[in-house]
Structures are given as C-alpha cells and as structure tokens.
C-alpha cells in the first residue's frame, strides 16, 4: 500500500464486504481505566479489527492486509509486527515484496526499532541474495540521515552476515567528503579497516589511513572524530605514534594557527605523558598559548599544556586539573 493510496478516501472497515463476518474488539480498559485512551476514529477502528483477528489467531490475507493498515497508522506497535511475522510465515508471503513494504515505511520512520528489526528478520531469511538490496536500502536511509544509528547497525550486520565489503571503504570516503564531521562514518571506516576480510587489517592500512586522517584534521582541527580515529589507528602502540613525523608536523601546523587547538593539545598531552619529548619548535608553538595569568615559573610542558587546557576548556576544567595533578615531574 503506497502512501499515495493513503491519501485516497479510506473506506471504514465496517463497510468493507470482506470484513462483515468479523466482530471488532475494542481496547480492554477495565472497569476504571487507569489510562483512558482515545484514538482518531479510523485508527481506533483498524485496531479494533486487528485485535479481533489477533486474538482469534486468524492468519489470512485479510489479516495480513490489516497489519499493513495498522502499521501505517502506528509503526511503533510491536504486537502488530509480531503478528505480521506469524502471518507472513503461515501464508508464505513473497519476502521481496516485504522488503519493498519495509522500505516505504522506513523512509518516514527511520528511527523505529520495530521496522529495523523486521527488516533484519526478512533479510536473514533471504540470505546472501539480498546483500546488494540491503546495502542499497541502508544507503537510501543514510542519504536522508547520514548518522542514523539503526541504519549503521543494520549495515554492519549485513557486512558481517552476508558480505559485500568491496565498496565499503569508498562509501565511507564518500560520506566523509559530504560531511567530514560524521562520527558514524568515521566509526564505520574503523570497522572496515579493522574487520574487512579484503583489506588486510590495521597494520597494512595504517600508513594510508594516517595520511587521510591528518588531512581531515588539518582542514578542521575542531572536529572531534578524526582525532579519535587517529588514536584508534595506533591502538596500544604509543611508541609508533610518537615516532611518526607526519604526526609531529600535524601538531605544529595546528598549534601555529593559534585556533581550534583543544583536541591537538589534549592528544599532545597524552603523548608527552607517554614519553614524547618536545623539541624547541614545539615549545615555541605552545608558549604563546599560555594563559595571561601565568602559573608560577614552570618548565614542565605537560603541566603548561594542562594549564592552557584548563583556561580554554573551562567546561572540563576539573578534568584538566586532575590531569595536571597526575603529571610526574
């Protein structure tokens, strides 16, 4: 049932020939309803008829159609989806048609858990033949909302259960070109780099990924996501991190702009605490950033960096103060 059909005049179910034998069951609210509920009349009628077929467990085409109507009114009703699945199985409904139905509903209700779960249930039944369909479907939803958590979760499931890794890194690339601030796309990039059976793993990919990430940082140093991604690329391997000349050069570039350097300083602090020695060029870059009310004379740059952060990120001043207290001379 397309959304166009919905706009046509709806014939009350009580006036439809095929439903004359069914007695609709109103919502049982008990003697003194705790939570009296009211519906628009159409919705109420649909749900009354749904209740009738649900309680009599009628698994017929008309029941199936009724769940379609009920879902259009309220796609969050999980009991309707539950019954729809029972009817689907009993009738052996064409699951490809079902995918189309789900897509039409999902586009206007893209954050609804029931819809996504139902989609996965159907896709699981169809298996690898729907790899492309599932990747295309999530792509359409992500086109409407590139950070939709459900879509990403579904996409990750598809890749792991059904395959289709070939173009995933390119897809992440494309989304990041559209919005370099898309944390979900960065997360997916990490997912692909670390888990794709085709790419060879983190070690192999690290060099090219570092280059990509550094470029992203340099164009928008205030972007939280690439900083986290960068840390992820060096997971557990701080010494490599420290030795990478691309990283040093990146830091200096950001610090010298004297702008948007919170994340730069925070990562620099972590590296210094892990043994990174600041050369003169670094010290000269950090000096001008010091707060105008200077600390007592300080030569420990880790402490200096903490002082700068306390000043420029006052929302988290307790965190930076704690970091300062942890710096060993």
């Amino acid at each position: 049932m397309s959304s166009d059909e919905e706009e046509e005049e709806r014939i009350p179910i009580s006036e439809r020939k095929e439903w004359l034998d069914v007695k609709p069951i109103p919502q049982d609210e008990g003697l003194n309803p705790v939570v009296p509920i009211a519906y628009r009349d159409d919705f109420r009628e649909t749900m009354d008829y749904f209740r009738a077929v649900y309680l009599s467990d009628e698994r017929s085409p008309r029941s199936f159609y009724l769940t379609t109507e009920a879902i259009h009114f309220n796609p969050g009703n999980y009991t309707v989806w539950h019954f729809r699945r029972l009817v689907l199985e009993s009738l052996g409904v064409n699951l490809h048609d079902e995918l189309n139905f789900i897509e039409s509903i999902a586009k206007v209700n893209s954050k609804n858990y029931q819809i996504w779960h139902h989609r996965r249930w159907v896709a699981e039944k169809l298996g690898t033949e729907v790899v492309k369909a599932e990747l295309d479907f999530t792509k359409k939803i992500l086109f409407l909302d590139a950070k939709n958590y459900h879509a990403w979760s579904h996409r990750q499931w598809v890749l792991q259960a059904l395959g289709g890794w070939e173009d995933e890194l390119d897809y992440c690339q494309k989304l990041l070109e559209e919005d370099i601030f898309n944390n979900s796309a960065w997360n997916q990039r990490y997912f692909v780099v670390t888990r794709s059976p085709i790419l060879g793993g983190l070690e192999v990919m690290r060099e090219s990924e570092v280059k990509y990430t550094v470029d992203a940082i340099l164009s928008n140093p205030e972007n939280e996501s690439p900083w986290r991604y960068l840390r992820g690329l060096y997971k557990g391997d701080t010494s490599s991190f420290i030795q990478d000349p691309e990283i040093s050069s990146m830091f200096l570039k950001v610090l010298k702009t004297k702008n948007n350097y919170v994340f730069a300083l925070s990562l620099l602090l972590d590296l210094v605490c892990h043994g990174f020695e600041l050369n003169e060029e670094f010290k000269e870059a950090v000096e001008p950033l010091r707060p105008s009310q200077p600390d007592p004379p300080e030569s420990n740059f880790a402490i200096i960096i903490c002082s700068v952060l306390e000043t420029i990120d006052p929302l988290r001043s307790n965190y930076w103060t704690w970091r300062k207290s942890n710096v060993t001379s």
Partner: protein
Amino acid sequence: MELLSGELEVEKHVKYILSVEKNKDSFESVTMEHLRMNGAYWGLTTLDLLDKLEIVDQDEVISWVMQCQHESGGFAGNIDHDPHILYTLSAVQVLALFNKLDVLDIDRLSDYICGLQNEDGSFSGDIWGEVDTRFSYIAICCLSLLHRLDKINTEKAVEYIVSCQNLDGGFGCTPGGESHAGQIFCCVGALAITGSLYHIDKDLLGWWLCERQLVQSGGMNGRPEKLPDVCYSWWVLSSLILIDRVHWIDKAKLARFILGCQDKENGGISDRPDDAVDVFHTYFGVAGLSLLEYPGLKAIDPAYALPVDVINKIFFGRK
C-alpha cells in the same frame, strides 16, 4: 552558579504527566498505546521523584500492570499485546515504586528472562531474536531487583558486554557499533550491577563522556558532533556517576540546560529548548536534575533508575 529551586515547575510537570494519561485526543496517547508500560514507568517515576506518587491510585495501576503479564512470564506494553523484555523491566520497576514486587511470580518472570539469553551471553528482546546491549542491561537490572541474578550466565553476559567496548572506551549496541551514550549507560549499568566495572577504563570513558557536554548550550549530546538532547543528561550523567567521574562536567551548566527545556506554561520537558514536550524527556530531565542534586527532588539510583529509597527497600529492607 546557584540553582534556584523555584526554577523547576513541579506543579506544572505533575499536571502534564496526569494529563497525558487522560487526554483522549493527544497524539502522544494515540501512538503510545503499545508502550504504555514504558510510559507508566516514566510518568510514575517522575511523580515519585517529585514526591507526588501518592496522587496515583496504586491499586488500579497494579491491577493493570498484572493484566499485561503473558503466560510466558514476560510483560507486554499494554493489555493484549505481546511480551517483550523492555516492558518486563518497566513492569517490575513500576511495581517496585509501590513496593509491591511480592505480587509477582518471580520464578516465572525470571525464567522468561533467562530464556532470552543467547549462547554468546547476549540477550534477545523477545522470541524474534533482536540482540542489543540494551537488553543485556534490562535482563541484569530486572533480575537483580528480583534477587535472581544467579539464574543467568552472568560471566557470559559480562563477556558479551565487554566485546561491545570500543577503543574510545565507549560501548555500542553490538560489537563494532558506534559508541553511543545510551548504549554506554546500559553497558556501564549492567557492569556496575554485576560488580564488573573493572573491565572499564574509567579515565578513558570518563573523558569521552565529559566531552559530550557542549560549550554553547551546556547540554549533552550522545555522540561526537551531534546536537544536545535532554535524555543524554541522564545517560551521560548516570554513567559518569557510576564510574566516579561526574566532577569532570560542569553540573551547573547542565542543570541550566535541562531547566531551559521545560515548557513553563503547560508543563513537561522537551529534548531541547522550545521543542514539543513528551513524557520520555520529562522523566529524563527530572531524573537528570535529581542526579545533579537539584533541591527538592528525591535521589535516584544511577544504575537502577529508580528512587534510592525504593532501592534501599529492595536491598536493605525486610523481606
């Protein structure tokens, strides 16, 4: 920054919550029918935090709750709906508010939840098999409230949750899933209840969480580069409290943000200032303020999301 207790519109919020139940034409009532159990938990817990729970007819509520129980032992979102782990927790929480857990057949309920644990330690939401760390939290929280945590394979449950931990210290819905404050609350809460917080790098996660606070609004987002939303005031805040890092945020600014999301005329709280209110955000706003020790509110337990006096009765009261 001093908080003035006059700023929280207690009476208006109480009125709003009661009206949601009674307003026959509201869109909210119409579309919430199937998750009335969640709605009851949000509304009633808020009333309790505002110390107004006595307005509600306890017997009516309990009678309705019990009518939502399925023969499987699980609870549905409303009468004549199907059971799901989501509504099972809310039902138990609502009964806990009234100190009526004894009306339950606890073994039957526990069996329902145990039946939802999968081999890898994860939990499904219902018979249809959806897996999500939210359900791990729900199972663990629910069974803990019923003193039946020993019925599940806790070790495997914890193992699964830990497998959802990301390099940034956060947690997603499944392994590899993007770190999200809501999922983090569920994982941290579950680990707290099972005594397994040692799996967490508290400094790393604490920093990720305190970075959710936005400079301009003082509110919290759920993931990097997203907008603030009142519900994250709960999920981020409770997580920070559970790992002893709440002093890393600016509490006064967050409280200001939450108060700014109130509808001061009609009551209720919305996701961000000037948006439409709903019961869900009203609950999370008030719960967040409670965690921030806003004057006049009852204290709420960050792991169980129930008033502390309710939790004390369950764990320290007479059986």
